[in-house]
């Protein structure tokens, strides 16, 4: 058991040598508000990287910059060796960045299954005319992806709501479906924005399990924003701490936990 864990750890460490994403000197402003100033950090292949910080620190904005929804005013972002200044969100998606959202952004009118299948859009390439027929190759393709999605549904244990429109699901399940949708994209980098908000302990544990499994089995690199320090400290490999748009700390959970600035700005006394 522990041998296996060690082996896994070792693999993670080896993979960690490679960086997947680097953020260099990124700044972002909105009118007078400096959401991010001069942030730099990197994410290594295969690790779980947490981003934490007080409310309004710029965590979500950082993710938005990474996947092209916001365009930083200055600075560079390099993903898989490619540097870019501006890009459209769908380009980020096609390069292998997927994410979940702080305010659940599911497609409310669609069923769970359809939502997850949407994540496969980039992987489906039968053209328009086959789509018109929805038979033969188009159907085969559809089934192939359906099987993939069913695996995800299985994995996330949401079989029972497969055909329920997501708009009416309770909040916690919506978050889970959202994770499923992101997983369906088979991303290289998975950005999770507060995936565990609004969940109770048990559900958080489930969610951690999913995240860890994804990380281990699919080697998916994960960047995670979360306010539950227990979760962050337990599952992440390295942590960046932001405050008012500045980076105030970066390191392993234990290092960060001990950092006085982090304690003052964010953790407070009780942790």
């Amino acid at each position, binding site marked *: 058991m522990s041998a296996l864990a060690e082996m896994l750890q070792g693999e993670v460490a080896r993979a960690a040598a490679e960086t997947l994403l680097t953020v260099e000197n990124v700044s972002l402003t909105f009118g007078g508000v400096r959401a991010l100033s001069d942030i730099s950090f990197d994410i290594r292949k295969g690790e779980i990287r947490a981003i934490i910080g007080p409310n309004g620190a710029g965590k979500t904005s950082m993710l938005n910059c990474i*996947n092209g*929804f916001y365009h930083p005013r200055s600075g560079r972002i390099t993903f898989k060796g490619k540097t870019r200044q501006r890009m*459209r*969100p*769908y380009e*980020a*998606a*096609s390069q292998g960045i*997927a*994410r979940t*959202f702080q305010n659940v*952004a*599911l*497609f*409310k*009118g*669609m069923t769970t299954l*359809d939502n997850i*299948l*949407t*994540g*496969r*859009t*980039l992987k*489906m390439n*039968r053209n*328009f005319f086959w*789509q*018109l*027929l*929805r038979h033969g190759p*188009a*159907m085969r393709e*559809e*089934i192939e992806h*359906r*099987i993939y999605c*069913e695996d995800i549904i299985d994995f996330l244990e949401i079989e029972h709501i497969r055909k329920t429109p997501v708009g009416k699901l309770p909040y916690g399940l919506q978050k889970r479906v959202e994770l499923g*949708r992101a997983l369906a*994209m088979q991303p290289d980098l998975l950005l999770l924005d507060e995936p565990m908000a609004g969940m109770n302990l048990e559900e958080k544990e489930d969610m951690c399990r999913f995240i860890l499994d994804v990380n281990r089995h699919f080697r998916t690199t994960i960047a995670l924003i979360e306010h539950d320090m227990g979760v962050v400290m337990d599952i992440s490999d390295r942590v960046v701490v932001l405050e008012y748009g500045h980076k105030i700390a970066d390191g392993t959970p234990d290092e960060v936990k001990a950092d006085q600035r982090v304690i003052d700005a964010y953790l407070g006394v009780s942790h």
Partner: protein
Amino acid sequence: MFYREAGQFKTTYASDMAVLPILQDRIGLAVILLIGFVGIPLLGGNFFLQTVMIPFLVFSLAAIGLNILTGYTGLLSLGSGAFMGVGAYACYKLTTIYPGVNIVIWIVASGFFAAAIGVVFGLPSLRIKGFYLIVATLAAQFFLQWSFVRIPWLYNYNASGAIEVPQRLFAGIPLTGANATPVTRYLVLLGIVTFLTWIASNLVHGRIGRSWMAVRDMDIAAELMGIRLLPAKLLAFAVSSFYCGVAGACMMFLWYGGGEANDAFNINQSFTILFMVIIGGLGSLIGSFLGAAFISILPTALKFGVPALGIAIPGTVAEHATYILLGALIIFFLIVEPHGLARLWQIGKQKLRMWPFPY
């Protein structure tokens, strides 16, 4: 009790992904098609075919078109009337330039012209959203309508300025023109509608339909999932206008048999179709049919049905009553079920499933 999936196991994904996975639904569809293709032509009189069924089918087609745009992709449009007009004129030009080609081919082909125009007017949709998009489509509506009057080439320089539908044969029987019987026109129209509905259902149930709905529900998230917004929206415009265009061609050639297109494809037409879509249920193909039935048949039924029951009311009073009743019914149905008749239908099925228990 009678309507439930219990006992119907699906062993393959293909059967689970069928549009109608439940046996009862498939039987129902078969029965409807049978009635449509056999029962109605046999039993319905010419009046019924001409003033009830043919308009209903034409409007259903247009409503499907608009539903693809508004219901599935979430882009509000008030230009569908004009796009129908484009189809009608395209068909007219095509069949007068190439009289030898079968008219049914031209009716369907005219949709492509409407699609092209639709794409042009859909371009602003990337930047303009929500109710604001109405303006782009209204610009289309009024500009196209203006062109229909202003470009005499479109109506072959006719002195009347109207589309004059020539006689065309289909399998040796007149299909358009004065000598075409309502039955032939109805059957061909039903064929077109059935075929195009099948296509539409394929589209909306597959990848493309999903990306449309994603754009509708949350366009930003859709883009982050790798759906390119502009192509998706333009495709919706194209497909939607295609359907409207075919509906327009059908309207002129299989229903009206010619006339002032400027007048027939006005803004009221666009509104009418939008209402069909909303009353029927946004994002539902069945809803398109139900909405078309409601809005196109109800006034006729009130006008001719009530006197037929022996209640003599003067035409004007009937007309006013029709307006009042139609207005009241629209509000009533919206209150009962804002998601349209299609949803009502679903809830009905749900209740049937539970029957005899209330929930």
